[in-house]
């Protein structure tokens, strides 16, 4: 356990957390708890039950709001995925006959811990999503956001119906066309040119790193599991041994049991500090890329309006209309660009700080675990030698 002392912001006008979550088979029910001093809310403190789909609805609504086109919308939390521990649990059930009772219990414990870790992660990710919204000067005032926090009945009536879902699908299709668009567009502003290049490149690299980090963590977990089995087999050996060797085997079995706990912690710490970090910022960079797409689309609109104006002037028809349209497009584009610049700059800073924090913590934890391992191994060697 470590303690970190932090000064909280004076501005506690809107505090959100998820103190409670319930997992029922596939569905996770989050309890969203809000504490606020803002008058726009009916009560100063309240809680509502929410499902994952409600979060998705909120995210998509924000994305589709024109006014927020110039903002980085925090990425939607990923769906709770209990597939991996459930599959392992199933395999464990099948292999029960070949294991000793102790071994089986330990494996089951490990799996339960893994299940719990997935659960913790999903709560964390949903909580962070809401907290980012609440800390954003513009998004925190969104009406839908308030409804999400406050509406004490089932939100499902407001959620996507079939027609809207189709709309969503169409949007995804348009987005891939955007990728082509964004790379083809001639950028006037140096800042955006740099950002675009950087984000596109960085996204592919961070996606790769996330996948590789996941693999590393899984290998660590496999080793921890192996230690359990080895410890159990040594235990059986020890039980049947009547020679003075019994004590040696016992010590070794004990050692492996402790080693596997450390190995398990190494795996889970690495997962949280490294893999999760990479995964989260991969999604965040996608959100930043989406912002760039929207700006690119606005630019295209502006350029098209220019062409339309030229055409109108040539034909001397509807010039005033075309002029107005062009002016609007330009205004929209400028506003978007300004807001985008601010958002991207603060995003950079946020990312660097988060990387710094998590990498430091990971390095420290790895050192701590290695030291633990050293102590365990040394202890066992000393015990064996002294005998």
């Amino acid at each position, binding site marked *: 356990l470590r303690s970190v002392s932090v000064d909280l912001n004076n501005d506690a006008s809107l505090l959100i957390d998820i103190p409670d979550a319930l997992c029922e088979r596939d569905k996770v029910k989050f309890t969203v708890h809000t504490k606020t001093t803002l008058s726009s809310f009916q009560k100063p403190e309240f809680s509502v039950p929410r499902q994952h789909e409600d979060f998705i609805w909120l995210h998509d609504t924000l994305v589709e709001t024109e006014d927020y086109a110039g903002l980085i919308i925090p990425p939607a939390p990923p769906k709770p995925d209990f597939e991996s521990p459930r599959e392992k649990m199933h395999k464990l059930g099948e292999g029960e006959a070949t294991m000793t009772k102790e071994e089986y219990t330990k494996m089951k414990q490990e799996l339960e811990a893994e299940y719990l870790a997935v659960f913790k992660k999903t709560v964390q990710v949903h909580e962070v999503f809401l907290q980012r919204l609440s800390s954003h000067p513009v998004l925190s005032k969104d009406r839908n956001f308030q409804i999400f926090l406050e509406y004490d009945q089932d939100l499902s009536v407001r959620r996507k119906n079939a027609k809207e879902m189709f709309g969503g699908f169409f949007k995804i299709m348009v987005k891939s066309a955007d990728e082509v668009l964004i790379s083809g567009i001639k950028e006037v502003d140096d800042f955006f040119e740099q950002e675009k290049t950087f984000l596109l490149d960085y996204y592919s690299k961070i996606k790769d790193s996330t996948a590789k980090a996941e693999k590393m963590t899984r290998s660590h977990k496999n080793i921890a599991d192996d230690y359990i089995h080895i410890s159990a087999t040594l235990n059986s050996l020890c039980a049947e041994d009547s020679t003075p060797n019994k004590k040696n085997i016992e010590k070794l079995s004990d050692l492996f049991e402790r080693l596997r706990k450390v190995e398990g912690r190494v795996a889970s710490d690495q997962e949280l500090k490294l893999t999760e970090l990479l995964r989260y910022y991969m999604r965040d960079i996608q959100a930043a890329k989406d912002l760039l797409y929207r700006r690119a689309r606005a630019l295209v609109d502006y350029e098209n309006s220019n062409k339309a104006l030229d055409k109108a002037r040539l034909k001397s028809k509807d010039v005033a209309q075309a002029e107005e349209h062009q002016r609007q497009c330009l205004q929209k584009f400028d506003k978007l660009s300004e807001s985008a610049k601010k958002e991207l700059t603060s995003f950079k800073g946020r990312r660097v700080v988060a990387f710094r924090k998590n990498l430091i913590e990971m390095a420290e934890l790895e050192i701590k675990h290695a030291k633990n391992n050293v102590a365990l191994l040394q202890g066992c*060697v000393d015990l064996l030698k002294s005998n």
Partner: protein
Amino acid sequence: MWQERILVMSKSEITISTLKKTKSTDVFIARAVKPCLFQTTLPMFRNKTFTVRRRFSDFLGLYEKLSEKHGPNGLIVPPPPEKSLLGMTKMKVGKEDSSSADFLERRRGALERYLQRVVNHPMLLQDPDVREFLEKEELPRAVGTQALSGAGFLKMLNKATDAVSKMTIKMNESDVWFEEKLQEVESADQQFRKLHALVESLVIHRKELSLSTASFAKSAAMLGSAEDNTALSRALSQLAEVEDKIEQLHQDQAANDTFSFAELIADFIRLLGAVRGTFDQRMKAWQRWQDAQTILQKKREMEAKLLWANKPDKLQLAKDEITEWEAKVTQYERDFERVSATVRKEVVRFEKEKTKNFKRQIIGYLESLLQSQQQVSLFPVRGLHPLITAMIFKALCAFQHNFTQVISICRVHTFPGRRSATGVKRVTIYRGFSPRSGTPGSSPRLGYLCRLSPPLSAPLSCLPTVEK
């Protein structure tokens, strides 16, 4: 008297190290020829240190000779590693990769331990075949072993033990000690086979870990080069370097798991097989005795019949045969008792050796595990940490103006915040979580508390205080 000899032997050791292997230039059969180095302080050998070159088939030949001579007497003759068709084919083809290097190293270690066991046995050391093996420059090629392929060898062993085990069901065990010991050996065999499979699986997983660490290191390096913040970029490249070094450690560890753990277990399983073999030899001796008794009985019955039928010439023959078989029965009974005594002594010696060796080998394995962990605990400090610290200050200076808020994610205990005099809420956060107790079957419930850290107008106070 025998005890004395054991003491003498252990003081003057013979250490055997099989040096690196070189392929013979024999065009027809490319066999790995192993130079063996022997060091001894025993007076019976001519030189103190000497080296000879031996082929793998020579080792097998030695085993054959020894087991023929001493096996039936109840000695535990240490078994050599099996011939491996796959391994040798790879070598003949001339494949120079890690798996063939692996194979060579495993075999070298196994042969070394095999020879060491042979010379540690006081009786076997006296055997002229062993002396010849150790000293003679060139050994005649052992012909009989060519038929001993890996699978064939095992099959031979198994058939022999099977045939005798069929006999054991009928044995009237007078001494319960043997029964117990055999039981122990058999269950130990089972468990050790299981353990061996598990350690091999551990090796595979560690190799996987080493591979995935390597590929992550490359990916992190690429990420670092794409990063536009210079301090973070350097930190990421440093992380990549550290992970690269860690990958090497994992590889070394996998090798250690193989040679200092898995191989030793495999060795021990083979040795257990040899112990089973001596029990079987004892059975054989008993059977011989019983068979002789049965024949004697028949001869006596024949004599009685002849007496009754009054055939004087055949009677004399029968009487002679009876005398012969009476002598044989006595001989075989004495043999059986001698073999039983030997087996007993051998098993006691085996158990003592086992304890001593196990301890020594496990300490060796753990110490190398220790070494690699110590290196891991040093790496990040040297490489990553000071760079990250440098990053802090740079990042702070660069982004001070544009920062509004940073949201941090922590797992915390739910804690009532204490209000300080200035109205700034200080919350102490512990890493970890407290599961609230519920009914046994309920789903887990967790406590969470979020906190927002302040704007960077007060930069240093927002830095987490870190425990050294």
